[in-house]
């Protein structure tokens, strides 16, 4: 195995991670619409059907309940299915299987049965897509005990977290931010699967002492961009890439806020009931006396995701993030 880090797009890093796990464990298999010959609409499974055959890389019938439900049965039979939901907006027909079956089965079986299923979902907006193709459904999963929810922000993270997710005994909802599928970064395959703790722990993406930004996925780069701009003005911002949304690692954020006194949370999902509220609630609980300004959120609005001609302004972007940082720093 090459140990030289390669500059790779996240989609390729994910493809490599799937390939490496298919290679390593004969029980791993992939199921999803169009993931075979086509390689998935985002080509994340490109070439895998050719190399591992149609029984391990299964182009499924249309039907998301069937995809997740059959993965549950395969997991019961000893397999480790990695399924693909074609787009974020199409996960809802599978919601019953995910919420009432996949998430609850360990509890129902009194800890006897693990369902090591990974549900891959391309998520998020900013790609000029039509309705249902730009959604951020993570809060639904984060509110469902029994699931882990992971969302990488770089190709290396995508590679290592995907391998860790496949090896994890718990069901993992693996969110792949579409906007950064083709963004490149160094990927070191020899790092292998991420250590298990990474599925519990956020990552400090940049250190700073004036203010903390907590975010994940595609917005991590935006937050780092905001930090650059503020650094140019002499303000050092700490950027935390949450990495896993369930569990939500507020402890890393709280530790940061104890130093900075200020927190801005960013996500694309609508504000109300979004995961930012949960994080804000925990941080003000644990760092109440250290907070010098209210926790602010920069999120999607409480409207349906808009037509793509409006998305650039609708989505939380650099300007809104900077505004929120300014507002926090002005307190």
């Amino acid at each position, binding site marked *: 195995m090459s140990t030289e880090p390669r500059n790779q797009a996240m989609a390729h890093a994910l493809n490599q991670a799937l390939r490496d796990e298919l290679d390593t464990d004969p029980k791993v298999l992939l199921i999803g619409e169009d993931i075979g010959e*086509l*390689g998935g*609409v985002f080509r994340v499974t490109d070439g895998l059907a050719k190399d591992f055959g149609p029984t391990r890389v299964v182009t*499924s019938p*249309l039907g998301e309940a069937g995809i997740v439900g059959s993965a549950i049965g395969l997991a019961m039979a000893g397999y480790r299915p990695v399924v693909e939901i074609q787009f974020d907006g199409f996960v809802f027909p599978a919601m019953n299987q995910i919420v009432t079956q996949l998430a609850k089965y360990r509890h129902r079986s009194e800890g006897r049965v693990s369902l090591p299923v990974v549900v891959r979902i391309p998520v998020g907006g900013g790609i000029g897509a039509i309705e249902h193709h730009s959604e951020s459904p993570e809060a639904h999963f984060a509110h469902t005990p029994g699931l882990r929810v992971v969302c990488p922000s770089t190709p290396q993270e995508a590679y290592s977290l995907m391998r860790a997710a496949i090896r994890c005994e718990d069901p993992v909802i693996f969110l792949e931010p579409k906007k950064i599928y083709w963004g490149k970064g160094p990927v070191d395959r020899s790092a292998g699967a991420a250590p298990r703790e990474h599925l519990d722990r956020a990552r400090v993406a940049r250190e700073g002492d004036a203010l903390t930004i907590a975010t994940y996925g595609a917005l991590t780069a935006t937050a780092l961009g905001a930090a650059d701009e503020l650094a140019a003005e002499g303000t050092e911002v700490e950027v935390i890439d949450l990495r896993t949304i369930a569990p939500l690692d507020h402890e890393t954020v709280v530790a940061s806020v104890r130093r900075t006194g200020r927190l801005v949370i960013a996500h694309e999902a609508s504000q109300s009931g979004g995961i930012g509220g949960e994080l804000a609630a925990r941080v003000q609980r644990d760092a109440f006396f250290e907070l010098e300004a209210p926790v602010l959120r920069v999120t999607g*609005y409480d*409207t*349906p995701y808009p037509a793509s001609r409006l*998305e650039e302004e609708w989505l939380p972007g650099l*300007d809104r993030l900077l505004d929120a940082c300014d507002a926090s720093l002005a307190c």
Partner: protein
Amino acid sequence: MEPTLDLRAALRDMILARRVDTEAIALQRQGELGLWPSMLGQEAAQVGAGSALRPRDVVFPTYREHAVAWCFGVDPVQLLGLFRGTTMGGWDPAERGFQLYTLVIGAQTLHAVGYAMGIVRDGDVGTGDPDRDRAVLVFLGDGALSEGETNEAFVWAAAQNLPVVFYCQNNQWAISAPFSVQSRVPAAQRASGFGFPGVQVDGNDVAACHAATEQALAQARAGGGPTLIEAVTYRRNPHTTSDDDLRYRDAAENDHWRDLDPVDRLRTALLESGEIDDAFLAEVAAEEQELAERLRTGCRALPVPSHDDPFLHTLHTMTPELARQREEHLALVAAGEEDRA
């Protein structure tokens, strides 16, 4: 019942609807549309069905029923907004009864069933009065047959004997999945499992499609319950302009179906029978030019929605928090515009 299809009119509709499709693809290539799902090869299936509708019938399309929209009188420019990113809809579904395109596979089949329940409750079925009786025509693809919701629609339609016709265009592919991934028996056979009739027709024969639809709609309006029609046809273009169909299917298959092209077939037949002549075709060609021009201008002129839009249309009555968010958003947008100015 006499077949009522005017084949000359059908040919004209097929040619013009195809032009809508071709122009939309061109507009996508020019960057004017983000995406376009072409219906090339499905013109007979769609015009056959669309021409069997009466004004009081209601249509629930997927995202590919451009020729049905044409038959039902929807302005084709309005079809473009969804794919240009200026709207999620584009036309008033109540105005003509041509409902909005639905992108979530299968979801519309249940709306069709609910609408048909409404028709029954309105007493607009089985009266024998042609100005009163109505039916619902709902479109679906071969892939949609595998979604749970579609099958629930079959359950409801059958058990309640609803005035709804399910029109499945089996274009052989659901993106890259050939029909064999979904089923080992013809799509039309699905209906028998639910206890209502399923009919298979040559989807490239507009007269056959028309006759089957007309008959099924007549039966539905008369209180005879649902029918599933399978129009066997082929999607000759990639799934959408974003798709690369050569990754999953042979060009030869495409060639085979090009030889069965429904427009060529009808044109040739009508020329041979003398029902049309070159003058007719020249006239339609002129119409085509006009239409193409209208689409190009219309597309570029489609209004970009205001930043207010999502906020105004989330709920009937805006809530205080949403009003706050709206103000914040509009202020930010205005500030951004100032910055740029």
